[in-house]
C-alpha cells in the first residue's frame, strides 16, 4: 500500500505510530498528482514547495508533542477559498492571476490543525454549474470512469479525493455543489447547516445559500474535517454562535430509536431506476441498523428549481458586480470607464456566469422585483416549512442526491434548463439552510457511483454523521475502482 492511498484517520494513525512522516506522505501525494492529474484534471494549482514546508513543520510539531488534529494530513482546497499566497481563480479568466492576500477562516482552521494544503482544485466558474464544465481552465473528469463528468460545482474537490490525490478536501455547496459531485465520484461530502462554517474568505456566489464543507473517503474522515472547520467566526456575521459538538463521537453503533423519513416527492418520474435501486437498498440497510422508516412529504419540492434559480442568480448578480477591472482581477481597457467595465466583464466572464448575472439583474430590476425575487423568497418560506413539518415526523431524511449517475462529458452543454433541473434533489437543502450529506450507496451496472443523500434539521450534523456511518458500516462497499 502506498501512503497516498491512506484516508485521514488512517494517515493520522500511521503518523502517530511513527511508521510514516508527513513529508513522506505529502511526497507520495505529490507524486500521485504528477502521475495522474494530467488525465484527471482535478488541480488548478499544486503548491509543491508550500506543501513540503508545511509537512516538515507538521513533522517537527508532532515530534515536539504539539500535533493538531489533522497534523501532517494533505488536503486540497476548492479554488474559491482563499489560501494566502496561492492563486484563487474561481475557475474564471476574471481571476486567473489573482493571488490571495489572506486565508479564508476554514483554511486558517485547517492550517491551525496542522493540515498540509497541497493545492487548489477545479470547479465550475464561480461555482455556477453542475458538471465542473464551465471552468475556464478545462474540466476535470470522473476518476471512476473515463469520459464522464465529476459533477459540480466542486468537481475538483471530489475528483482529487476519489483519485487518491489527497486524503480529503474542502468544497462549497450553494445548491448541491458538494453533495452531487460526491455522489457522482463515490466519496463522502457534507454541506453543513447554513452558518455552521464561516464563509469568510469564501468567494461569494449566493451569500444566503453558500456553505463550506468537506469531502472525504469515509464518514469518520468527514466527521474529523467537520470538527476542524466548524464554529462561529467574528469575521462572518452570518456564522452562528452555536457550540460545536464532538462530531467523531457521534459515530455510534446502531440507529435504534431513530426514524428515517423517505420524502415521496424525491422518487418521481425522471429518477434513474438504477439510482432508485441503490437508494432503496440503503433504506433497507438503515432499517437493518435499527432505524424506523416512514414516508414523509416535502410538497413544494417541484418549485425549488424555479425559486432557487431566481434567488441564487439575484444574489450572484449583486455579488459579481465587484468584478469591474479596477482593484483586482482581469481588465480589458476601454476608451472610458464604462467601456472598460463592459470590456472587462464581457471578456472575463464565461457564458454560464453571464446568463446568471442576466437572470438575476432582470429579476431584481425595476418592475420585476415582486414578480420574481419576492415571489421566490416567499416560496422559500414554504420550502423551509416543508422541512420543519417533515422533521416533526423523523430525525433525518434519506433520498437520492441526483436523479442520475454521472453523465458523459459535454452532454448538457446547450440546454441550461435541463442542467438546472438535474439539481432538483439538492437545492431545497440550501433554500432551507439545513445540513445534507452524500454517502456512497453503490454503483450502477456500468460501474458509476451513486450516493445516498441524508438531510437533517438545522444543526443536526451529528445525526447525519451517525446515520451515514451506520450506512457505510452496513453496506461495506468495496473501494471504488479508479479508471486510470
Amino acid at each position, binding site marked *: 500500500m502506498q501512503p497516498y492511498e491512506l484516508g485521514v484517520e488512517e494517515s493520522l494513525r500511521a503518523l502517530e505510530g511513527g511508521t510514516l512522516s508527513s513529508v513522506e506522505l505529502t511526497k507520495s501525494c505529490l507524486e500521485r498528482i504528477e502521475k495522474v492529474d494530467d488525465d484527471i484534471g482535478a488541480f488548478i494549482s499544486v503548491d509543491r514547495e508550500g506543501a513540503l514546508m508545511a509537512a516538515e513543520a507538521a513533522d517537527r510539531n508532532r515530534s515536539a508533542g504539539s500535533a493538531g488534529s489533522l497534523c501532517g494530513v494533505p488536503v486540497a482546497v476548492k479554488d474559491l477559498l482563499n489560501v494566502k499566497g496561492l492563486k484563487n481563480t474561481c475557475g474564471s479568466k476574471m481571476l486567473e*492571476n*489573482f*493571488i490571495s*492576500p*489572506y486565508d479564508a477562516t476554514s483554511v486558517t482552521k485547517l492550517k491551525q490543525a496542522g493540515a498540509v494544503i497541497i493545492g487548489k482544485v477545479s470547479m465550475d466558474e464561480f461555482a455556477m454549474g453542475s458538471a465542473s464544465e464551465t471552468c475556464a481552465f478545462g474540466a476535470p473528469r470522473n476518476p471512476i470512469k473515463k469520459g464522464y463528468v465529476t459533477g459540480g460545482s466542486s468537481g475538483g474537490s471530489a475528483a482529487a479525493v476519489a483519485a487518491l490525490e489527497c486524503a480529503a478536501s474542502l468544497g462549497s455547496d450553494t445548491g448541491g455543489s458538494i453533495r452531487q459531485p460526491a455522489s457522482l465520484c463515490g466519496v463522502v461530502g457534507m454541506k453543513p447547516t*447554513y*452558518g455552521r462554517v464561516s464563509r469568510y474568505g469564501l468567494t461569494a456566489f449566493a451569500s*444566503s445559500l453558500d456553505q463550506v464543507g468537506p469531502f472525504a473517503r469515509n464518514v469518520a474522515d468527514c466527521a474529523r474535517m467537520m470538527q476542524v472547520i466548524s464554529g462561529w467566526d*467574528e469575521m462572518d456575521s*452570518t456564522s*452562528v454562535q452555536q457550540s460545536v459538538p464532538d462530531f467523531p463521537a457521534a459515530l455510534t453503533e446502531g440507529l435504534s430509536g431513530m426514524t428515517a423519513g423517505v420524502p415521496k416527492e424525491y422518487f418521481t418520474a425522471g429518477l434513474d431506476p438504477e439510482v432508485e435501486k441503490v437508494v432503496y437498498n440503503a433504506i433497507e440497510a438503515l432499517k437493518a441498523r435499527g432505524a424506523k422508516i416512514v414516508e414523509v412529504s416535502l410538497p*413544494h419540492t*417541484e*418549485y425549488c428549481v*424555479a425559486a432557487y*434559480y431566481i434567488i441564487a442568480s439575484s444574489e450572484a*448578480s449583486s455579488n459579481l*458586480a465587484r468584478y469591474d*477591472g*479596477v*482593484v*483586482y*482581477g482581469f*481588465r480589458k*481597457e*476601454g*476608451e*472610458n*470607464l*464604462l*467601456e*472598460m*467595465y*463592459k470590456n472587462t*466583464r*464581457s471578456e472575463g466572464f464565461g457564458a454560464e456566469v*453571464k*446568463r446568471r*448575472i*442576466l*437572470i438575476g*439583474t*432582470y429579476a431584481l*430590476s425595476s418592475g420585476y422585483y415582486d414578480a420574481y425575487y*419576492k*415571489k*421566490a*423568497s*416567499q*416560496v*422559500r*418560506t*414554504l420550502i*423551509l416549512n416543508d422541512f420543519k413539518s417533515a422533521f416533526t415526523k423523523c430525525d433525518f431524511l434519506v433520498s437520492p442526491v441526483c436523479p442520475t449517475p454521472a453523465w458523459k462529458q459535454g452532454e448538457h452543454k446547450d440546454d*441550461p*434548463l435541463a442542467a*438546472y433541473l438535474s439539481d432538483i434533489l439538492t437545492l431545497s437543502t440550501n*433554500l432551507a*439552510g439545513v445540513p445534507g450529506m452524500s454517502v456512497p450507496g453503490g454503483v450502477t451496472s456500468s460501474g458509476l457511483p451513486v450516493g445516498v443523500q441524508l438531510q437533517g434539521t*438545522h444543526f443536526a450534523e451529528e445525526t447525519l454523521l451517525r446515520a451515514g456511518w451506520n450506512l457505510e458500516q452496513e453496506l461495506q462497499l468495496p473501494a471504488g475502482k479508479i479508471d486510470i
Partner: protein
Amino acid sequence: MNMKISQEDVQHVANLARLRLSDEELVTMTGQLDTILSYVEKLDELDTTGVSPTTHVFPLSNVFREDIVRPSLEQQEALENGPKTDEDSFLVPKII
C-alpha cells in the same frame, strides 16, 4: 409566439449589468432566458398571499463590536492584485 423577454429587454439588462453581448450571444441568451423565465412562471401556481419572504434562514441581527483600530491589509498588499496601479493608487480611465 409569446416571449417572456425580448432582445431589447436582454440588451437593457445587459447594460445594467455592464455586459456587452455580441449579436450572436444576444440571440442565444434571449432564447435561453425566455425558456428559463417561462419555467419560473411555475411559481405563480402557488398562492403566496400573506406568506412572509425568507431572505435568510436564521433571523439576522446587527453584530456590534468596539470601534478599535486593528491591523488590516497593508496598502502595498492591496495594490498587488490591481490590474493597473501606481505607487499608492489604482488607475482607471479618466472620469472627469
